[in-house]
């Protein structure tokens, strides 16, 4: 995924809202400062809801890429 290298990848294809946000937040709490999590989410409600719920909790989405009609990759930095 370009030059951005994630420390961990969380595949949430097919995981509904808000379980996808919940699992991302849980994963992020176990990561260290400065680390990057790559999250794969579905198009539609997930890509609308997951980034905003992460930002609500103070996480920064440093990049989002649509890799197909149905899929997005989010890069979240732990700060």
């Amino acid at each position, binding site marked *: 995924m370009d030059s951005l290298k994630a420390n961990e990848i969380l595949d949430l294809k097919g995981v*509904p*809202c*808000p*379980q996808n*946000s*919940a*699992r991302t*937040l*849980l994963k992020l709490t176990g990561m260290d400062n400065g680390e990057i999590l790559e999250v794969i989410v579905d198009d539609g*409600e997930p890509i609308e*809801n997951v980034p905003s*719920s992460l930002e*609500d909790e103070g996480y920064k989405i440093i990049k989002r890429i649509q890799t197909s009609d149905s899929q997005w990759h989010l890069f979240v930095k732990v700060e």
Partner: protein
Amino acid sequence: MEIYLDNIATTKIDSLVLKAMMPYFDNLYGNASSIHKQGIKASAAIEKARAIIANKINAEPDEIYFNSGGTEGNNFVISGLVKNHTKSKKHFIISNIEHPSVFEVAKYYEADGIDVTYISVNKDGIINPDDIKKAIKKETIFVSVMHVNNEIGTIQPIYEIGKICKEKGVFFHSDICQSFTKTEINVKKQNIDFATLNSHKIHGPKGVGAIYIRKGINIPPVFYGGGQENSLRPGTYNTPGIVGFGKAVEISNENDIVNISNLRDYFIEKIFNSIDDVLLNGINGNNRVCNNINLIFKNVEGKKIFTELNKQNIFISTGSACSSTILKPSRIIKALGHVDKIAHGAIRIGISKWTTKEELDIVIENLIEIVKKERSKIN
């Protein structure tokens, strides 16, 4: 003073568990399926619990599906497997000492035309895995054998049974409600395809449990109408219950198991040294779950012992909890080869992490008196 020794029927909730649950009754009461901040927080708590439970049995979090407990779990797995296979396969295998939530389901499907094989246990309550091997045929859908029996506490050789099922290409389901957190469960190593778990046997809340389903296996839901648990078990999440279940697993530890085992052995040894003509149902030693004691005092009715101890505020059980109002000898005790008269004598004592040696000494003193008095009536 009350002495509660019915910890196989259910356990007292741990204060740490209750504390972990409280916010989800109070400030964080939002529906865990809602996408607002409250919902996400509730959902995150559920996912945390799921990860803890999965880790305890070496499963993946998305192989855990929450439900209402053991009875639902057993019904769900068996019904789902039968529904999925009746066109091509019409046979399954269970042991003859399964919990009623497996045994009665088997009886129901048997009456409906499904072929069921009931595998007998030996005098110690243990299954011979070779008997399972011999019973598997090309029509066999699955084998269901509980890890630990709820009346006699025997630990079944599920590693060997799982291996046989894998070799023969049939599914293996195990009801692990009595063994979960008390003896090692590793679904990968033990080749378990489905497992039934619950919370209230391990100082968690009642009304919550889970099933483990190995990734890649599809079975149909029992309920329809919602997307929760991958649509396999729809219904509004019991967030406080699930959080409590996770906490109960998180705080379970090996030290408690060692202490409980030591108390169990202390009690059994002291009873055998104090009272003649006593039988221990189930096996003695490492193949018995830590918290279970099941005894028969010859020529003394189990119900009589129960009643006399109850008067003294000492709470035990005769037979299994689910059938303690039915005055029939236990099916499980009879499966060990005992005739009705002997089987009527069985009492079950369940120890917990809070049981003390002093409490057990009081129970032993009472038992000595009760047995002496009852036997004197015969002589």
